[in-house]
């Protein structure tokens, strides 16, 4: 558990403090010094406009990791709420919530996000909206599944008989049971959000230039693939390492939850 917290904490630290560590202004254009190879001043070299690639990567963490954290959190809240509504509510609520889930799952989520972000106009807000709206369904299914299995537990029935309202039952008797599994789902969705943000950025529908975001940096690098092939390595590597690290955290978390579940 501690290692998971450390991993997620480190990524968030990078998102918050990354810009402070940056040696240069990530948007400062320096045409004479453009396409510089790595030097002691520009550790990873400069891009086509002479901007420091290392600084852009560090600033990019704010978008790529920070936004992914935000998006996966929105999905967690919305999905859990919908799943609990389905589990606790009547048959009609359950039916409506599950058909809504099916509908949003009826479409490859990245394609849906591309269409939504594209039609709403490129920009950070439509990016957040597009990835959140396509990223809550897994939480909802998990929350509903566990919720349904809890419904017939003795203490839940007793709590209801004692006159506790739906919200209190959900808060005190469902949520503690849901959280471990939902956290495992959340790590997967955090990784998905990182990939989604950079994919939309790469297609030009995400965070807009000159803001440094890893996907948009790749888009830039693709154009100059032949002249400066090394430029595309860094942002891609940043995405891959972040996703790997989060998946690792998810695996550790899954094992912990599974073992604790055995004792319960």
């Amino acid at each position, binding site marked *: 558990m501690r290692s998971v917290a450390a991993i997620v904490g480190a990524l968030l630290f990078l998102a918050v403090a990354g810009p402070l560590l940056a040696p240069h202004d990530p948007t400062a254009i320096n045409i004479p010094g453009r396409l510089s190879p790595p030097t002691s001043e520009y550790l990873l070299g400069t891009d086509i406009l002479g901007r420091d690639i290392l600084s852009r990567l560090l600033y990019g963490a704010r978008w790529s990791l920070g936004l992914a954290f935000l998006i996966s959190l929105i999905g967690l809240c919305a999905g859990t709420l919908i799943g609990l509504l389905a589990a606790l509510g009547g048959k009609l609520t359950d039916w409506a919530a599950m058909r809504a889930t099916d509908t949003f799952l009826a479409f490859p989520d990245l394609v849906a996000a591309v269409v939504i972000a594209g039609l709403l106009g490129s920009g950070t807000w439509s990016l957040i909206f597009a990835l959140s709206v396509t990223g809550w369904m897994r939480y909802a299914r998990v929350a509903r599944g566990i919720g349904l299995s809890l419904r017939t537990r003795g203490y839940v029935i007793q709590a209801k008989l004692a006159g506790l309202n739906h919200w209190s039952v959900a808060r005190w008797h469902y949520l503690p049971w849901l959280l471990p599994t939902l956290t495992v789902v959340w790590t997967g969705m955090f990784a998905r959000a990182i990939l989604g943000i950079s994919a939309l950025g790469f297609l030009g529908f995400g965070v807009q230039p000159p803001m440094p975001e890893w996907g948009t940096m790749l888009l830039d690098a693709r154009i100059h693939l032949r002249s400066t*092939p090394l430029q595309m390595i860094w942002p891609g590597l940043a995405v*891959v390492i972040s996703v790997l690290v989060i998946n690792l955290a998810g695996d550790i978390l899954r094992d912990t939850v599974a073992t604790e579940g055995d004792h319960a």
Partner: protein
Amino acid sequence: MITSLIGLILRAAVVLAGTALITFTLLWNAPGDPAQAIAMARFDALLTQDIINQVREEAGLDAGFWTAFITWVGPLLTLDFGQSSVTGRDVWPDLLTAIGYVTPLAVGGLAIGLALSFSLAIVATRRPGGLLDRFAIAVASLGTAIPAYWLGLLLILLFAVHLAWLPAMGARTPSHIILPALTLGLGVAASLTRIIRSGILEARDQPFLSAIRRRGVSPKDISRDHIAPHAAIPVVTVFGLELAFLLEGVVMVEVIFGRPGLGTFLVNAIEARDFPQVQAVVVLTALIFVTVNLIIDVIYRIIDPRIGGRNA
């Protein structure tokens, strides 16, 4: 069986209706005046407010949301996608051209992905927990973390720029498909390997197998009659996921390699705000996706009679 089949079909219909409603809500709320966009596309310069209003009326855009929705959804029920608002040409022929490009890419990617992941999973499960097994899992985990657009760029860098063995951009010759299909296939393989691996392991672990073995049934017959069907269940599930992966993959891969196809068609349509083209892709994708998942659900019930009853 019949009632659950009808239930499944009804559910698919509800999902499609929901998709249509969401799509229209999106088009309705998209920024910019769609009437003006259509008018600009059709008449180019010399736009007067009269022309815009006329277009608005023609397209049924000045009615309320629900009236406009009904007018909009009617032709779609017969798969009539209308004309592009940019070129004024019928959407279908251009869409068919795109499908013609995307099909070999998707089939090639899937074939590469299935071949790679099955061989990797079979080799890995020969000795579970062994060196090869752990290696296969590590490769697959790494693969799922590599986004298609980066993998594609790396392959271009290696095979097209550095070694100059293969062409990268466009789709002029048959060899232009190799790198895109490889990019897609490697992604498919990474996402499939772990699932197939655990499918095989789980199938081998079934408690009744030892009973059957003790009865003297040959290992070959056991593999065919008992392990294979069990291992097939996760593979069938995965086909639904794979389809999603393929559709997402082709969008990225086509853009990276500058290849015409469904993804390029969609991205260009979005950039040009060509709503009829965008909605054609959306409706078609949803239709394919829902149909395939419906078929998967039915196959499920046939290969595993335990599934059915109340499933979510």
